[in-house]
């Protein structure tokens, strides 16, 4: 279902490409700025060479077999990396390159669905780490540099600027869901299920339309916000104990939580149709920087550098044709701390 939809949109974008080819054909050469001189053209990129050098050392390329699926940020010299969790979750043969070194043995240490970040570990000793920028968030119009295309030995840059206010996106919706829609129109204190999504934890557990929700994890539920509070901070695969009333009978269900974007299919908007390949998870972040570096869904996960070579954020989503999101550097220490194995763990 999802597949056929996106194919349709691709076909539509191709139509537009054709229209363009027709229009561009009669143009005289020399009337256009050569590709090498454009924003991310090869000559323009040369000015960013010092930053490319930094990306070469302290960004990682994450592969599934031969295919590069994401970039990563080197955060410790002994081989801890962070990357975009939702892009690597289905990988079967995870392997990583940092600079020219290939690491076949990659462990996924921990992930956080709240930020869509995964902590990886490779066996290394002398990796160069990013230097997080601690001068506050960059202003509108500041140059930023990210990983562009890559070969096995050489990273390239793509460039852009900070585009908009740093902010929360997605209105604080929990990134994990039970897979139900709720009818809130009835009188207070009676929250009933108006729909159960296919392939959701709620469907598998046996919840049905019309069930009246009484409590979740032993806490009384009166309104949607109560439920959202319970879901906040939970990870996919966690369970919630849901008590419901069905035909005057009280029943209890263990519902497995799954990621929002897997259960609730997003409608593809016209803007999406003109946006090429964007990230599956591109909303519901507590705070993001917005920039205009033209990444794809496979080039998120890496560092975002400023002109000083400092890391101002970690690219976390290609949103559409003109927007890319990065987690601000200021949020990263806490995220990393929560993902890192505790030193007093055995």
């Amino acid at each position, binding site marked *: 279902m999802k597949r056929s939809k996106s194919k349709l949109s691709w076909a539509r974008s191709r139509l*537009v490409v054709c229209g*363009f080819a027709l*229009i561009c054909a009669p*143009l005289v050469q020399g*009337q*256009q*700025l050569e590709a090498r001189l454009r924003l991310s053209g090869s000559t323009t990129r040369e000015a960013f060479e010092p930053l490319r050098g930094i990306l070469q050392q302290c960004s990682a390329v994450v592969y599934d077999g031969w295919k590069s699926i994401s970039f990563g940020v080197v955060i410790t010299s002994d081989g801890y990396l962070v990357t975009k969790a939702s892009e690597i979750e289905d990988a079967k043969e995870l392997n990583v390159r940092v600079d020219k070194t290939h690491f076949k043995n990659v462990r996924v240490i921990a992930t956080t669905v709240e930020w869509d970040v995964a902590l990886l570990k490779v066996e290394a000793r002398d990796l160069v780490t990013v230097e997080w920028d601690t001068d506050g968030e960059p202003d509108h119009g500041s140059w930023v540099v990210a990983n562009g295309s890559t070969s096995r030995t050489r990273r390239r840059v793509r460039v852009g*600027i900070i585009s908009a206010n740093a902010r929360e996106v997605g209105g604080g919706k929990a990134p994990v869901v039970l897979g139900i829609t709720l009818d809130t129109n009835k009188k207070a204190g009676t929250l009933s299920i108006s729909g159960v999504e296919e392939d959701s934890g709620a469907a598998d557990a046996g919840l049905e339309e019309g069930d009246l929700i009484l409590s979740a994890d032993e806490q009384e539920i009166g309104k949607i916000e109560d439920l959202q509070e319970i879901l906040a901070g939970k990870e996919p695969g966690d369970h919630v104990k849901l008590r419901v009333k069905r035909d005057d009978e009280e029943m209890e269900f263990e519902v497995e939580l799954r990621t929002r974007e897997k259960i609730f299919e997003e409608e593809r908007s016209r803007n999406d149709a003109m946006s090429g390949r964007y990230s599956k998870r591109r909303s519901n972040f507590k705070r993001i920087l917005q920039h*205009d570096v033209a990444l794809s869904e496979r080039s998120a996960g890496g560092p975002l550098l400023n*002109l000083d070579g400092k890391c101002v954020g970690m690219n976390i989503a290609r949103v559409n044709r003109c927007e890319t999101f990065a987690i601000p550097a200021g949020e990263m220490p806490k995220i990393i701390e929560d993902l890192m194995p505790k030193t007093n763990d055995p």
Partner: protein
Amino acid sequence: MTQVLPHDCWRRVGASAALALISLSLGSPILAADEKAEARPLYNLQEAPESIRDLLAIQEALQRSLPRTRKATVGIDMGGGSGSGVIVSKEGMVLTAAHVSGGVGKKLTVIMEDGTKHKATSLGLVAETDAAMLKIDEKGSYPYVEIDKEERALMGDWVFALGHSGGFNKERGVGVRIGRIVRWADQTIQTDCNLIGGDSGGPLFDLKGRLIGIHSRVGASLEQNMHVPIRVFLRHWEKMEASEFIGEGPFAEKPVAFLGVGTEDREEGGVEVKVVGKETAAEEAGVKVGDAILEIDGNEVENKEKFSAGIKGLKPGTKVKLKILRDDEEIEIEVELGEK
């Protein structure tokens, strides 16, 4: 809410756009480069930036221009759709795209970056090139930008685009994107500043913050972002200010006159009214179901196709006299045509 940036327009623009692009290669502003060279900043004289220092010069120029230009960039709510625009005079004259304003005399809402809303009315537009003007209704002193009247911008120049991508969003604010002029034509500027639906009508600036174009449309490739050059506005300024609808499509369609009846052919000639639309010109004038329309302005009505084509050929607001046969009696009704 849908955002306007007509992807689809490409298919409709087709031939006319191709023609426009050919003709423009003749009048390229590149020829003027030498005489303007002295005033041009280093970043526009260099083929490309060569060092971090060069990049910093671009960043500094851009950041100096941003506060002013952001303040003057507005969201435009057309009711059911949204676009962008830019204020160019203290009195609240706004430039935008014709496919955003959608016509002459339309009521719109202009939204400042801080969320303040102003009522506005669309003035004239140029339908072939996607240029339009509107005016904030309320008298006031509005933040505005300078227009590049000398047309100093050249191919290769560094530029930035502002706009309310995907519709107004107060938390996000105006979005800024950087790029270079990739192609310059008489009626179109192409840049690699990435635009998306909702940006339509928004401003393109040189790094000094002078307005050089208005966002119009995009192609599938990221480098196909098209803007209406400011010269199109300058060329038609007085007529647009006087609320003229200039030229024919594809970015705006002239309003079509509308009577508001459904008819069927009559064997005896003329057409019989089968339906009278609610709140239409026909209802207001007292046309009734069952009426046989025999003549319009003294001309015999042959069949329903010719009758409706005749109405569509008229301007909204035109008064027409209908000769009607009702209950075996011929009467005459005058109708002021509405707008579809």
